[in-house]
């Protein structure tokens, strides 16, 4: 069967079919679009960043073009950021490239919190227990794995890192055991 035959009337066209499937998949996988509020807030944050940078850089001393001071370059860059932010405020409101925060965004918050937790606990009680805990949170609560695979994978991963860092690579990670 040649490719040509697939395009006779009546029979579904592979190209059309594929395009439909890809479009369907994209629609399924793309989270809902964030509205103009997302764009405006993002642009305002950028604007604040640019203005703040410019004010601070100005304080470092601009110097002259002949003798650029430490603040000249960051000042120029900050002005560019601020200008681009204004452009975004003007033309960017209707963009559809922002994604709405959904319930699933709380997963990210929880994931970020476990990162911070590991950072705090690492120097005090070593990496093993926090690593196992992080594994449990991510597998069981964020990933929906069964308890059995959660425990097995968390402990196996931590053990593997223990061997890898402390014995194979001989890197001194803070460790309890």
């Amino acid at each position, binding site marked *: 069967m040649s490719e040509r035959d697939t395009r006779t009337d009546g029979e579904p066209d592979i190209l059309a079919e594929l395009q439909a499937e890809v479009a369907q998949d994209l629609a399924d996988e793309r989270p809902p679009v964030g509205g103009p509020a997302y764009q405006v807030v993002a642009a305002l944050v950028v604007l604040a960043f640019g203005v703040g940078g410019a004010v601070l850089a100005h304080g470092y001393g601009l110097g002259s073009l002949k003798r650029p001071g430490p603040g000249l370059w960051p000042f120029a860059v900050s002005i560019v950021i601020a200008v681009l932010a204004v452009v975004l405020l003007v033309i960017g409101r209707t963009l559809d*490239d922002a994604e709405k925060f959904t319930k699933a965004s709380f*997963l990210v918050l929880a994931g970020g919190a476990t990162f911070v937790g590991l950072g705090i606990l690492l120097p005090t009680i070593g990496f093993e227990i926090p690593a196992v805990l992080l594994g449990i949170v991510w597998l069981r609560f964020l990933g929906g794995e069964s308890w059995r695979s959660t425990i097995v*994978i968390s402990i196996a991963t931590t053990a593997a890192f223990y061997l890898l860092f402390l014995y194979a690579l001989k890197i001194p*990670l803070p460790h309890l055991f």
Partner: protein
Amino acid sequence: MDWNAFLDGFAVVTEPTNLLYCLIGVLIGMLIGVLPGLGPAATMAILLPIAYNAGDPVSAIIMLAGIYYGAQYGGTITSVLLRIPGEASSVVTVFDGFALAKQGKAGTALGVAAIGSFFGATVSIIGLTLLGPIVASYALDFGPPEYAALALLGVLLVATVGNGHTVKALVAAAVGLLLATVGSDTFTSANRFTFDSLELQGGIDFVVVAMGLFGVGEILYNLEERHGKIHVPAAIANIWPSRKDLKQASPAIGRGSVIGFFLGVLPGGGAVMASLAAYAAEKRVAKDPSRFGRGAIEGVAGPESANNAAATSSFIPLLTIGIPANASMAMLFAALLVVGVTPGPQLIDENPELFWGVINSMYIGNLILLVLSIPLVGIFVKILRVRPAILAPITALITILGVYTIRNSVFDIFLMIGFGILGYLMKKTGFEPGPLVLAFVLGSLMESSFRRSMLLFDGDATGFVTRPISGTILAFLLLVLLLPLLKRLLRRRVTETTTPDHHDHDDHDERAELR
């Protein structure tokens, strides 16, 4: 060309440890190419601490390079079998690759892709071997103004060529430049943006930035976007393409290799753009363009040869001028700095072992990939069944423990988490983190070149334009900036007389008008 140094490079690669690192690199590359989610830049970022800890810097660089070009092979597999591009550079392979798979010719598609990839990469490495030293000797004459212009060009191209809105990409790039100024100023040692923090005085380490934005950012983003859908790959039989298929594909492989080589050298180019351009070229030269998207073997052969050729040739600007062409090359740039090597035209003379070791490792790495990719397809298909939930905590742990090992600093962990959250928020609001990281990497080079130039020109900025090389670069830069505007004008003209073929564009325009 210095043939002795070139041959010595092979001696470097064939040391058992280097061969092992090369093998590990390409295997990791293929693996992450197969797994949707983490891209090559993110993986290289996550594994950057290895550069600090590896006994031999050359091995670490060989491995990181292997990840990049290995990923180009892996991305094909999921494109063909699942209609999911594992890598952005394999997106166009989806159309014809999956159509072939539907006709029971998945094996043919994968086989042709592997052969095309190998051929494209090899053409590119030969080009790199021959051209690299020439470009480097030419670039030795570059002064600060040329570097300032080149860095600006690199940043702008990455921002304008990448996907996503151009203004947003430019914002990201500018923020990257600003972040690069944090710390004590190299000229006057005045503290900038340090907020009296001792840790910030030395500046922000770009390994931390890259690991945060690419690594943690993508891990967090995937946490939210993860889907429980389990994909069932198409069955594969008969991987070796028939002689007829090969004959049909070989012109496409040739064209794809050439297109890929040239687009890879261009700053901001690289594998993604090359694969798109090669697909468009194949469609244009085909006698019957309507076959494309319905299982044309050229539609797989062209882009796959091109993305590998481009992945390889994008090493040229990095290794010979010291300007990374894309985000993945920026990671390699970072890794080179970590091992105490400043990439640039002097690299080939000062570090011939590293220069030729890395280049020649690609000959061998690609051979490994060709030999492995076909028999390993079955295993990689099985890996696809591993649920992302299981991989997520492992990558998360690698990132945190990895960033800590750089300086034994908990501050770095928190800084990285901060950048991770920034990266996540950027993705949510449509800002690409790529331009930020690249601009950050080039930031200090750009600033110091700019300031040296101003001293050199005695405050007269027209010097940038009147020097022949920097002037040419700036003219090219202007062209790049104006091109999208021209294109938009042209497109508006075309849509007035268009066929319904371009309906996606029209929809977009209409929607914009409705608002």
